[in-house]
């Protein structure tokens, strides 16, 4: 069924364009295999939330105006992987260690919540019992898992590379 283009669609498209332009113009830093996995993590974790809490029988929110899956939802999902990549990219570039880790997670969780508030104001999310306060906690949890996996993946990658250069 064709539906008219709403503000949520424009929000999705504009954010997608900005994200992917930035993604393709950033100088490569993370190994391709690790970057691909980080992007898969960045897509899978939100999908787990969206399709656990946002669908019946729990059904706490709708995405992109309608309860049904629409093409606009695919656009929304496409926003997640580059964000996970930027998160890992900056984590690596800024050499986040020690006490900087919780500070970095907090900054990203606040930014994520603010981004979601903007998306909700454009109709990308429609809460039916959900609240941005819970989103903040979800972002903290998801970002912590992503950071942990990223660090483990990078360590594993460097170990494998080192082993391959041994005589």
């Amino acid at each position, binding site marked *: 069924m064709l539906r008219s283009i709403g503000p949520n669609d424009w929000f999705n498209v504009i954010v997608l364009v900005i994200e992917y332009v930035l993604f393709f113009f950033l100088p490569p830093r993370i190994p391709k295999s690790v970057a691909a996995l980080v992007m*898969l993590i960045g897509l899978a974790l939100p999908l787990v939330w*969206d399709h656990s809490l946002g*669908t019946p029988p729990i059904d706490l929110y709708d995405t992109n105006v309608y309860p049904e899956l629409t093409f606009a939802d695919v656009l929304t999902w496409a926003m997640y992987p580059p964000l996970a990549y930027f998160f890992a990219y900056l984590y690596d570039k800024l050499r986040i260690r020690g006490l900087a880790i919780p500070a970095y997670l907090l900054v990203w969780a606040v930014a994520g919540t603010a981004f979601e508030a903007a998306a909700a104001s454009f109709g990308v999310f429609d809460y039916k019992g959900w609240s941005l306060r819970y989103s903040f906690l979800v972002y903290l949890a998801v970002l912590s898992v992503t950071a942990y996996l990223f660090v483990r993946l990078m360590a594993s*990658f460097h170990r494998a590379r080192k082993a391959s250069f041994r005589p």
Partner: protein
Amino acid sequence: MQLVIMSAVAFLTTFAYFATERRLHHFEILAAWLTAIIINSPAYSFFAVNHHWVSVPRIGEIAAARLIYTQWLFPLYVTWTVGRMTALRRPLAKLAFFLAADAAMIGLGWGLHLSGIVQFKPAAWPYYAILKTIVLLSSAGAALGIRYLMRKDGIPDAAFHRPE
């Protein structure tokens, strides 16, 4: 009761998997696992909300049991299957194993239906079978794709096979 059984199965299966898995590199495990989630999760919404082909009773325990199955046990099963399939050398053996694993996945869906965790309408079954085939193929493709990227990153083939 469904939640207790599902949790116990999830715990024991996970333990068994990580105690025995020697075929895939953990990059490949993660790729196959995440791909299964990425395809399966929206498909559930498509089945449940767009077409009303499946429904889950509004009982917290049963909803939790379904989540354990869809978000943990099912990706685990797919990843296990991909690992086993990768280890087979002959194409016919691969195909036979793939078909058997696919049929078993549909059987698991039937088990969910019988146990009352998910209620399928008859119209759902052909699409459910197609979906499970797509998930399995995509996860196998993701594992191969990540192996390709690892090679491009300079990790040699020896890293992919941990000793038995």
